[in-house]
C-alpha cells in the first residue's frame, strides 16, 4: 500500500511517501513561509522524486488536528481536492498521535506531546507503550499547564512510569516550568524529533488504512479542540 502523507497542522509543513516496508520520501519545512505556498509544490516534488503519479497512490494521510486552525484547513482542503479528483481514500491522524510516534516505545515512559494553544494552554494527551504499541491514556484537549502537570503526575504514579518524554513546540514557552515539576523524570528527544514528522503520521495512517478506518471526503473537518472566540463569547452571553 502506497501512502502519501500531508501535514500542515503546525508551523511545520511535511510531505512523505511510504509503504509498509519503508519510508521512500520525506520533506520537512520549518522555514517561515506560508503553507499555502509551499504545500502543493512539496507534494509535486515528492511524487516526481518517487517517479509516481497520484494514480499510483493508494491512500492519502492527513493531520486531523489539533493545531493551527488555518494550517489544518490548508492541508485538509488540499487533501480534499486531491481525493475528490482521484477517488483516493483519506485517513486522518491526530497531530498528538503523530508527535507521540516520534518516541522510542519504551514501557517505562509516558509520552506527552504539547502543542502551543496560547492563553496559557496546550493541546495535549498522554501516551504509554506496551509491546511496542502506543496507547492513549489521557484524552486530547486544550489543557491548562498546571492542570496537565497534575494529570501527568497522577498517571506517572498509578502506571508506575519512570520517565516523562515531552515533545512539540508547546514545550518551549513553559520549559522552566516543566523542568521544575518533572525534575529528573523529564526526558526530551533530540531537536529533530520535537516536531510533527509526516513520515511518522504516514506510519500511523497505514495502520489505520489497514483496519479500514477511512475518513469521508465530504464530511471530514479538522479536530480543533476549541470553539472560535466568537462562539465562546456567544456561549457566555457577551454578544
Amino acid at each position, binding site marked *: 500500500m502506497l501512502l502519501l502523507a500531508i501535514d500542515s497542522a503546525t508551523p511545520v509543513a511535511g510531505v512523505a511517501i511510504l509503504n509498509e516496508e519503508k519510508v521512500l520520501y520525506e520533506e520537512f519545512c520549518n522555514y517561515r513561509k*506560508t503553507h*499555502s*505556498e*509551499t*504545500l*502543493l*509544490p512539496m*507534494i*509535486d516534488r515528492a511524487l516526481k522524486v518517487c517517479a509516481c503519479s*497520484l494514480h499510483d497512490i493508494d491512500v492519502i494521510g492527513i493531520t486531523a488536528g489539533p493545531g493551527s*486552525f*488555518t494550517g489544518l*484547513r*490548508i*492541508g*485538509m*482542503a*488540499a*487533501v*480534499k*481536492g*486531491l481525493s*475528490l*479528483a*482521484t477517488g483516493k481514500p483519506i485517513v486522518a491522524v491526530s497531530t498528538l498521535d503523530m508527535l507521540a510516534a516520534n518516541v522510542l516505545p519504551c514501557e517505562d515512559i509516558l509520552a506527552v506531546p504539547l502543542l502551543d494553544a496560547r492563553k496559557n494552554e496546550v493541546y495535549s494527551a498522554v501516551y504509554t507503550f506496551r509491546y511496542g504499541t502506543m496507547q492513549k491514556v489521557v484524552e486530547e484537549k486544550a489543557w491548562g499547564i498546571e492542570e496537565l502537570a497534575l494529570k501527568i503526575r497522577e498517571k506517572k504514579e498509578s502506571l508506575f512510569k519512570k520517565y516523562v518524554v515531552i515533545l512539540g513546540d508547546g514545550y518551549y514557552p513553559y520549559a522552566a516550568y516543566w523542568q521544575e515539576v518533572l525534575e529528573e523524570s523529564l526526558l526530551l528527544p533530540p531537536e529533530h524529533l520535537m516536531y510533527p514528522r509526516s513520515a511518522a503520521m504516514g506510519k500511523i495512517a497505514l495502520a489505520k488504512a489497514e483496519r479500514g478506518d477511512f475518513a469521508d*471526503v*465530504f*464530511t471530514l*473537518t*479538522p479536530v*480543533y479542540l476549541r470553539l*472560535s*472566540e*466568537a*462562539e465562546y463569547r*456567544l456561549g457566555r452571553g457577551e*454578544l
Partner: protein
Amino acid sequence: MPKEIRILGIETSCDETAASIVKNGKEIMSNVVNSQIRVHQQFGGVVPEVASRKHIQNIVMVVHTAFAEAGMSYDDIDAVAVTNRPGLIGALLVGVSFAKSFAYALNKPLIAVNHLYGHIYANFLEHDNIEFPLVCLVVSGGHTSLLFMQDIENYEVIGETLDDAAGEAFDKVARFLGLGYPGGPAVERAAEKGVKGRYQLPRVFLDRDDFDFSFSGLKTAAMNLWTKMERRGEANVYDMAAEFQAALVEVLAVKTARAAEKYKARSILLAGGVAANSELRRAAQIEADRLGIKLYYPSLKLCTDNAAMIAGSAYHKFINGQFASLDLNAYATMSML
C-alpha cells in the same frame, strides 16, 4: 479556440461557499451557493473563523453538486478558477488550497480571479453588448470601489471607501437599530415604511471631487442622532432607516455619475450585494438617464457572492493563457487587480 471551454469556479472569500461551471464565459451550467447567513446571524455579522470552518466543511459537497447539476464529470472541465483576493484570508485559503490540488490532480490549468472583477463580470454573464468604456460601482459588505474599464481586460480602481464598506455600514446600523442581519435588506424593508428627510444625515464626501467614499462617519452620525431622538421619545425607526439609506445611496449614485462624466463612460455598471438595493438601482437609473447612457446591474442571484462570476470572468484569462502556478497564495487586500 478548438472547442467549448468549461471552467469550474470556486468562491470562498467571505461567508458563501460557492462553485459553478460556466461555458465560454457566458453560459451558466450550474451555480451552487451554500450561504452561511443563518450561522452568522447569531453573531450579528460575519465571524471569520466561523466562516472558515463552514467552508472546509462544505466545499466538497458544493463542488460535487456543481458538477452534478451541470451533468458533468470532474474530468470534463478545462480549467479551475478560484478567488484568491480580496477577502477574509482564512476563508480564501480554503478555496485556494482546494482549487489548487483539485486542478493539480485533474491536470488542468489553474486561474486566479480577483473577487471584485468577478462581481463586475456578473453583468457580462447576463447582458450582451455592454458598451465600453464604462465605470462600475462595486458595493457589498466587503467593498465599495469605483472602477474604470477601458475594455473587458483593462480596469483600474479610481476610488474606494477609506473606512467601512457600504454593506458593512448597513449591517452595523441595522444591528444598532435592532433591524436584524444582513443589514442591507433589513434597512431597505424598514425604509419602505418610512420617509427620508424627516431626519437629517450628512452626505459624506459628496463635496469632494475625488471618487473615494467614507461611511464610518455616516454610521456614527446615524447612531448619535438615534440616541438623541430616543431620549426625546421621538425615535421612528422607519424614518431613520429611510434617511440612512437615502444618505448612503445618494453619495454612491452621484459620485458614480460624476465618474461616468469625467471618464466619458458609455455605460454604468452596478455590482456586488448592495447593487441588489432597489433604492440604489432607482437613483443610479435617474443619473444614467440624465447622462443619456445605459445602466446595467446583475439579477439578484448574481449580485451576492457566487462562483458563476468567478468561472465566467476566468474565461478571458484562459484564452490569454494567464494561468497560476502551484504556489498560488491568497491575499486579504485588493492591490494588484
